[in-house]
């Protein structure tokens, strides 16, 4: 446990350039803390913010300077408080970027103060926009300062991860280039890793939230021939992070029992088919394999004596064209073949072969036995991985290929021989061509949803639910976060932008349910959601809107009209039902009627508070539903009708609370300018006088 113990300081930029993604920064750091609370209970975490208005750090107190750097959470063993501190991040007001180096120094200082020269894993994690100029140090150049810091980090064996967030399409200034150069200088000094991300979703994927100590799969020779061996270390390149296996819970123990484990033990008993009452002890069992209808018993000792026992080693069979190895034949998670660290000759040998493979478009076929006593061989392909970074070595990727037995030869009808009813027409072909061209996730220079920066939405959701449940044991499963939805569903922005092409596709093809199949069953099988949900997804092309509504208006049962008890809630419930768009219309009409009635029946302002809430709710809904005119007409009408009556003072209240018409700024469909909205009550008064 202690071997893997880690001390980590989060250096978070909360300056204005990061405000847009602060929520994601919070989320990813929270996930990190949540995972540590599950897997690494004794890790220590500290949080340093920079770009804050205030200044609060030890160095500032002792030496002065280091302004706008706040230690939000001192480094200590993680607990719920750490997660809490993250949730309460405040936006800073000062462009924080030029505090980057100060923050790094403060973080470094915290680590050194706390741990001195003791051994252990120490890490700094910097998330910044790096858009504003760095302050010049009091002496020397910025480069010198970076070098000094890097030396300190090296001395204390501290690593740093830098995540630089820049919104898509941002214009790169010379300042930003300089900042990047300085950050990359850390990388070149081998103390830091720098990644650049351009979307909130990829921030969530940029930070390793769980620490895995790299362990070699194999260390030894890659044998090209008996005469030529290259020393390699093999590591896992990909390995699935699984959903945690939760233990079964037993509620048998009395609640008073504080030491109860609540665990469930699973017991296996083996019984003969012939004598069901007799229990056979586990070591009296023997394995049997089917040979035709017969079962052949083979004891493990017998098996051990005759089974296939290959010699440990990695042997090259030869090289072949890349095209003769098919991509979909890759069988498993991937390994990396790295030259033995510190062995220049091995690095050179791998570098030259990898580069030759790259130039000639070849791959190598190898046979691997990772361990002595392994019962089978791995048979696979090495492909070159040419390093783009100066101080990282060239290496190979290793993918396992199937054996002849693993390939199942099923025949399928070739598309050319399908009946003409299954062949697309030229027009249809054009529609799909356009779709493929338009829904481009990798336009020049960048790639959306790169696996390397895409977090696992299920795990993200699980860990946030876990921490929520720790506080509220009966909490419901939260909806998927907006950023994570970008992984499971297409980006509505792209969809909206490309709407004509997408609709065109729908028009070009006709899809019909098979009438012979029972419809209910089909839908059961084809979709996880019920029929209502399906209708919804078809009717609401804008998913984002849906999602806001889902958060604002959780689904409830028995809706249909607005009652006196809780009108706003009823109204929201009606909107949330949304099984058809008519509901929205109906909800708004009902709400207008109800509010009007409230005001008309008001005696000495007793209904004002309720009416105010109703109007606020209606206004909010109209903005989200893009129906500003609905609200504007309603407000104008009711104002005209009631402004001179008993409830005229209600409008003063509205005016006081700044509740006016919906302006263009709030909803583009509105034809009311901001000026008009602001002066609405005044103008009307003036006109009436």
């Amino acid at each position, binding site marked *: 446990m202690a071997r893997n113990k880690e001390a980590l300081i989060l250096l978070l930029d909360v300056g204005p350039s990061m405000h847009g993604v602060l929520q994601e920064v919070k989320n990813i750091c929270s996930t990190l803390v949540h995972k540590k609370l*599950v897997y690494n209970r004794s890790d220590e975490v500290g949080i340093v913010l920079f770009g804050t208005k205030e200044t609060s750090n030890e160095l500032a107190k002792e030496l002065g300077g280091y302004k706008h750097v706040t230690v939000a959470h001192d480094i200590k063993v993680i*607990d719920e408080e750490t997660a809490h501190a993250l949730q309460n991040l405040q936006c800073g007001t000062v462009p924080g970027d030029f505090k980057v180096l100060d923050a790094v120094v403060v973080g470094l200082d915290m680590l050194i103060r706390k741990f001195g020269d003791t051994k252990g894993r120490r890490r700094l994690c910097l998330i910044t926009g790096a858009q504003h100029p760095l302050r010049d140090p009091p002496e020397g150049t910025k480069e010198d300062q970076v070098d000094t810091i890097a030396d300190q980090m090296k001395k204390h064996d501290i690593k740093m991860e830098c995540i630089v967030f820049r919104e898509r399409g941002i214009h790169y200034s010379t300042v930003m280039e300089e900042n990047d150069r300085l950050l990359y200088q850390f990388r070149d*000094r081998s103390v830091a890793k720098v990644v650049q991300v351009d979307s909130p979703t990829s921030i969530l994927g940029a930070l*390793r939230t*769980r620490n895995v100590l*790299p362990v070699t799969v194999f260390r030894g020779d890659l044998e090209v021939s008996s*005469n030529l061996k290259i020393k390699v270390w093999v590591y896992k390149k*990909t*390995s*699935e992070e699984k959903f*945690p296996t939760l233990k079964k*819970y*037993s509620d048998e*123990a009395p609640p008073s029992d504080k030491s109860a484990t609540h665990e469930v033990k699973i017991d296996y008993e*083996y019984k*003969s088919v012939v004598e069901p009452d007799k229990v056979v002890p586990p070591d009296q*069992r*023997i394995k*049997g*394999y089917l*040979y*035709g*209808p*017969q*079962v052949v018993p083979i*004891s493990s000792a017998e098996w051990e004596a005759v089974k*296939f026992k290959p010699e440990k080693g990695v042997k090259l069979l*030869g*090289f072949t064209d890349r095209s003769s190895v098919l991509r*979909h034949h890759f069988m*498993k*998670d*991937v390994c*990396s073949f790295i030259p033995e660290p510190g062995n220049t*000759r091995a690095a*050179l*040998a791998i570098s030259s*072969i990898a580069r030759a*493979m790259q130039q*000639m478009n070849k791959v190598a076929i190898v046979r691997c036995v990772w361990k002595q006593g392994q019962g*089978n061989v791995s*048979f696979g392909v090495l492909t070159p991985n040419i390093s783009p970074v100066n101080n*990282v070595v060239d290496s190979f990727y290793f993918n396992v290929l199937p*054996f002849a037995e693993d390939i199942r030869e099923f*025949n399928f009808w070739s*598309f*050319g021989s399908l009946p*003409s*009813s299954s062949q697309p027409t030229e027009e249809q072909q054009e529609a799909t061509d356009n*779709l493929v061209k338009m829904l481009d996730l990798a336009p020049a220079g960048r790639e959306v949803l790169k696996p*390397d920066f895409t977090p*696992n939405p*299920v795990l993200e*959701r699980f860990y946030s639910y876990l921490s929520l449940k720790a506080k509220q044991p009966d909490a419901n499963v939260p909806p998927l976060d907006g950023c994570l939805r970008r992984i*499971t*569903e297409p980006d509505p922005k792209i969809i909206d932008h490309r709407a004509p092409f997408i609709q065109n596709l729908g028009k070009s093809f006709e899809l*019909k349910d098979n009438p012979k199949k029972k419809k209910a069953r089909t839908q059961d099988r084809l*979709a*996880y*959601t019920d029929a209502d949900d399906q209708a919804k997804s078809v009717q609401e092309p804008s998913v984002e809107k849906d999602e806001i509504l889902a958060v604002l208006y959780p689904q409830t049962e028995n809706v249909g009209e607005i009652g006196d008890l809780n009108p706003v809630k009823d109204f929201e419930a009606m909107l949330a039902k949304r099984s058809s768009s008519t509901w929205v219309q109906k909800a708004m009409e009902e709400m207008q009627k109800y509010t009007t009635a409230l005001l008309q029946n008001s005696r000495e302002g007793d209904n004002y508070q309720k009416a105010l809430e109703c109007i606020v709710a209606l206004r909010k809904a109209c903005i989200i539903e893009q129906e500003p005119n609905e609200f504007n007409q309603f407000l104008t009408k009711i104002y005209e009708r009631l402004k001179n009556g008993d409830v005229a003072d209600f409008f003063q209240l509205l005016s006081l609370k700044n509740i006016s018409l919906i302006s263009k700024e709030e909803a583009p469909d509105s034809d009311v300018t901001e000026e008009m909205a602001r002066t609405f009550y005044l103008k009307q008064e003036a006109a009436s006088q």
Partner: protein
Amino acid sequence: MDLDPEGLFRDDSDEDDDNAQEREKNKEMVVYLVDASPKMFTPATTKADEEQETHFHTIVNCILQSLKTQIIGKSHDEVAICFFNTKEKKNLQDLAGVYVYNVGDREPLDRPTARLIKDFSSIEDSFMSNIGSRYGITAGSRENTLYNALWVAQALLRKGSAKTIEKRIVIFTNEDDPFGAIKGAAKTDMIRTTIQRAKDAQDLGLSIELLPLSRPDEEFKMSLFYADLIGLEGDDIVEYLPVAGERLGEMTNQLRKRLMKKRRVKTLSFAITNDVCIEVNTYALIRPTTPGTITWLDSISNLPLKTERSFICNDTGALLQDPQKRFQMYNDTTVKFSVRELSEVKRVSSHHLRLLGFKPLDCLKDYHNLRPSTFIYPSDENIFGSTRVFVALHSSMLRLGRFALAFYGNPTRAQLVALVAQEEVISSGRQDEPPGMHMIYLPYSDDIRCPEEVHVTSDDAPRATDEQIKKASNLLKRIDLMDFSICNFANPALQRHYGILEALALGEDEMPDIKDETLPDEAGMARPAVVKAIEEFKASVYGENYDQEEAEAAAAKASRGEASKKRKAITDAASQKSAAYDWAELADNGKLKDMTVVELKSYLTAHGLPVSGKKEALISRILTHLGK
């Protein structure tokens, strides 16, 4: 122009054809009809120096190998072996000259068993005494053994529906003119009735195949009789012989391989846009083959065992029904979840497959892989028009060089997938790659590691010079695997397993020797050109004196032996510590369990035993070592 885009005018029979495309026969029944006439027992070759092998022997061997493959590959298929032109007769219809071979209490047409294979392998020793051989159709005799044989085979294949079962009759003979011995009206009549018999069988859905054996001096003439029997015409007759020869070879040298029936894994809805949602089927074309299911047996009685699972509360010891609650320790507290809540957490998508967009193929990196891919093929079973959309999308993706990125909302693991369009590949009449899309499971950022960066230094990493790359290119050219195909490599562990299983089941004494095809070609590597290329590469990259330096370094290492010294120190310390206790006495008094794990491990280290496992394991290991 498409005359009938909606398929409105297709009648029902067309549609049935469509269904037939989908329907696969899931079982096979074969009757081997082996000619046992004396002609089969004459040596096949006339050359004196070659081993005198009869055609009969060739056939027996061929069927034997085929049975051995079948029992592993498709053990549910049924088989019958039937000789004709025999002295003895044994068949239900009591027809002369036909002998249905069988062993034990097996049905005549049944799954192959180990006993059948074992007994059949030695059939040649007793064939003449038990079954006997004679010419069946002779002048003056009214008997038609070929006719009888077809009748018996047809009767054997009566069970099961021809719609779900593929039924075959395979005739092995070296007589191209079975009715050559008779003449006149009797001959025409016999030929007519025999061909009619075959036709009747074919009408019932049985296929009749012929595996003819030619002698080197006289070729088997199909046109004399058999072309009519199996219904060949024109050019087919000429082509039949070489093809049949190949088939015979294939039957003998087939790879032991479990054959899977084509079966869809799942039917998925694939949402391309919000309003276009099609239906696709998934298939597992590539999956690691395991040695087969293990049946646990009682080692005393060899009877199968069944496993019973029970849940016991750890606190109270009470027996529980399958508990529906799960928990996870978080911040030292117990957080409970219901099974329903967990499945809701995992359900992040409302569709099975949701298209997100397209990327160029080079965005799919070599390390973007976790599991074997899954194959996707469209289906119109529930949603008409799905295939058409799929075909259009498939061809657009191929032409534009894109793969589709989609989200696969599988409840067990929801993940991003790359859908790569696959063009149909046909070589020598066989479909090597079916048309469709391969679904490649992509890793998330949490699944990707950066082992390259574990050992970075601030110095530049060594990079090969152009000269070194040139030498490497030369090496690549020299060690080139021509026509590499993964189909050439059998899994040595699995083949060994099958071999052992067969040897044990058939009671053979010798364990089979399996060739490991995954070993490098030593002879090829020793070719002078290859050796030269390797030497040049080595000199260029490693320097001239590499071997010598390595040897010195190894020698130096052995003498110094940092690691071994350290290990020795640990063992010494452990022995000292361990010597402080009287282990035998501790064991006798049952005091071992009172000792700490560290103390226990000192004993184990001192005696060179493994130190892994829980405390109980350590204690039992010590006890075993002490001999208690």
